[in-house]
């Protein structure tokens, strides 16, 4: 097992090298110019050219890539073209809001979606099953920004229960932290609840038709124990896979929710950086995303062994 984990961690190096080259190349050929944005609308073309030169953006591709790679290998993701702040600092500022949103979203999604999926499978073909499936379809179909604005309008503007926007760090108080995150997490959880509920239902349906479940029933095992002890554990592998994918995609994929609720997360950081062509920030964040993806995948693989002891690495 230890050798497997080590092998997987070592495998992240070529993956990230490819990501680094790909991202750098893509940004090199993409249109846009940070110098023009820094200079502003009033600047002359000559000013823009001088700023570009001062940023080193007029240097050949290989020199720029080599320079950046050397710094990355030395643990330095560079500094933002615009703010002159280290990219690691800018990422660090955004980690807690994004991580908080992820944790709360998945907590809401898992705590509701798994029971819903189990219930729908158990009551397969009844009105309960249909209600769960209608909810799942709605969760997929309603855009997050629509749900977000509706929640904000109702629970913040009309009922004055939560703030409309913003993020309060955890260390400033659990209540404030939670208050800022409830609406965005609920808005975002809808999609994941729909996905997890559907997967749980489908997998549970398959498992509930297995011989060992029939045997358990014949032996007089209670319905709750059959569903949550025997069946759900065996249905867990695909659910864990989906949760893993959801966790990874939430790192950078919550940009719409972050924008609607003005949460200073990683998604907004990377989108702002793309719009401004802040190359070091884009490169640094994408590298970090790829690393997290690889690690999450590794954790998911390891979790398989917990739910299915037949799996060995």
């Amino acid at each position, binding site marked *: 097992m230890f050798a497997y984990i080590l092998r997987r961690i070592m495998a992240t190096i070529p993956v990230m090298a490819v990501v680094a080259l790909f991202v750098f190349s893509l940004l090199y050929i993409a249109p846009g110019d940070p110098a023009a944005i820094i200079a502003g609308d*009033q600047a002359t073309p000559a000013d823009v050219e001088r700023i570009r030169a001062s940023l080193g953006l007029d240097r050949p591709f290989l020199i720029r890539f080599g320079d950046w790679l050397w710094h990355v290998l030395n643990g330095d993701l560079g500094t933002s073209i615009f703010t002159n702040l280290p990219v690691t600092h800018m990422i660090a500022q955004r980690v807690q809001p994004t991580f908080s949103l992820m944790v709360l979203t998945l907590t809401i999604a898992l705590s509701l979606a798994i029971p819903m999926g189990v219930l729908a499978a158990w009551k397969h073909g009844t009105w309960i099953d249909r209600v769960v499936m209608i909810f799942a379809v709605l969760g997929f179909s309603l855009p997050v920004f629509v749900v977000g*604005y509706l929640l904000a309008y109702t629970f913040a503007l009309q009922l004055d229960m939560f703030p409309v926007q913003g993020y309060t760090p955890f260390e400033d108080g659990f209540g404030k932290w939670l208050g800022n995150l409830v609406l965005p997490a609920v808005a975002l959880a809808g999609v994941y609840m729909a996905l997890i509920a559907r997967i749980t239902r489908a997998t549970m349906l398959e498992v509930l038709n297995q011989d060992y479940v029939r045997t358990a029933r014949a032996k007089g095992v209670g319905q709750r124990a059959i569903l949550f002890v025997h069946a759900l554990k065996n249905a867990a592998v695909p659910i864990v896979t989906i949760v893993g994918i959801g966790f990874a995609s939430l790192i950078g994929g919550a940009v719409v929710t972050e924008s609607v609720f003005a949460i200073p997360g990683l998604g907004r950081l990377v989108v702002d950086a793309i*719009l401004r062509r802040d190359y070091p920030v884009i490169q640094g964040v994408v590298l970090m995303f790829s690393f997290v993806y690889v690690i999450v995948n590794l954790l998911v693989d390891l979790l398989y062994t917990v739910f299915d002891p037949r799996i060995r690495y």
Partner: protein
Amino acid sequence: MAAPSIARAQGSKLLRFVPQANLSSMDAVAGTQYVVRNAALMVWDTLYGIDASLTPKPQMCEGHEVDAAFKTWTFKLRAGLKFHDGETVTTRDVIPSLERWMVRDTMGQQIKLRLDALEALDDRTFRIRLNKPFPKMLFALGKNNAPVALIMPERIARTDPFKLISEYVGSGPMKFNTKEWVPGAKAVFERFDGYSVRNEPGEWLAGGKRIHFDRIEWSIMDPATAAAALQNGEIDWWETPLPDLIPVLKKNPNIRVDIADPFGNIGSLRMNHLQPPFNDPRIRRAVMMAVDQSDYMQAVAGDDTSTWKTLPSFFTPGTPFYTEDGGELLKGKRDYAAAKKLLAEAGYNGEKVVLVVATDVAITKAEGDVTADTLRKIGMNVDYVATDWGTVGARRAKKDPPNQGGWNIFHTWHAGADCVNPAPYTALDAGGDKAWFGWPKSDAVQAGIAKWYDAPDAAAEKAAMAEINRASFENVTYVPTGFFLMYQAWRSSVTGVVKAPFPVFWNVQKA
């Protein structure tokens, strides 16, 4: 659980502000973005400062002496001026600050062209000696147009003018809190207790800049979110609410809505003078004949005609030297037949016109849509390239033919405060290769600008500006698409908000 109502009642020493855009950098000399300029005006001070009548008044300076020829200017700093790090402001800081600014600013460049010496006489006195008169010295030092002549500590002012500074120490009324800066989300300014406030009443950049808050927090957010946050009392002041949201905000008794900048904005249709077909002035003129400014302004600012008007001029209406000389081509009913005829005479034969439109900016998207329709009405072959502002910013700098990555037309708009006279008006310059994007060339325009710089009195300035306006229409330096105003909105608990080309934080209070 959160208690937003309780939180709202606290912190009357805190002003929560939503700026027009993300504060992505903090150097208003190397960059000319308005949002950066607005932040910088809190952190750094200026030697002189304009008031609401655009008259420069002493700010960091106690006063000045000038000879009759406007060639030797001697300035004296006020006593007791301090930077945020506690150091005293001296002429050792002023001189490199002005040197850095002179490289980047058009008026600064004019001073540099005439400069014999910029010298310190003592810690508080310095002199500018010129070889040609420069009567507009005080306006240059006190104007709000970027790049602003901000005074920085010597070590910061020595930064290459084409590189962004990385230390934000000024002598203005607010300190920039770098530790709490989350670019793209939040910027925090804290009151500078060591600021030496002038005794005169504050007006724009002139007079006493009294700050009534311990902190001013800028939050960057989506417009719909900002509208909700303002209604919910989570923010105090929103610099640029979208026109679509104004009716909702006006209905709320807790919110005040008013025009933000009395100088407004001038829309711009910018053609590439280097590339066919717009290298032919007749074709540029044909486009101007077809442009219906009402269509543009309705698309940009909506049906409320109190917020826009047509503009047969390159200059800001309502300002002392406004002129419509030569603007006939933009007046009256549009004559598409005459425009088509002129195109035919010029030999236009259906060549593709690459119209590059930043669709992520509401104003340029609206302008671009109207232009595409207008050009098609007169029979031009339009290639509408929808892209983002970042790409337009890069593409407009290319002089290549449109089919090799260049362009024929892009849109933008100019702050009216930058169009009151030729000094800050980069887009008016018609110096060919050295001019702004589009590279218009007209000796007549340039001669008019030179006359304005040398004008000894108001009458001469007015005559020079009329000459510039005529020549600019003749050359079709660009096509003004109209004049429009934008709103600002704030909670009624906030008082002292004024109309200005930038948000004026001093003398604002909150109940």
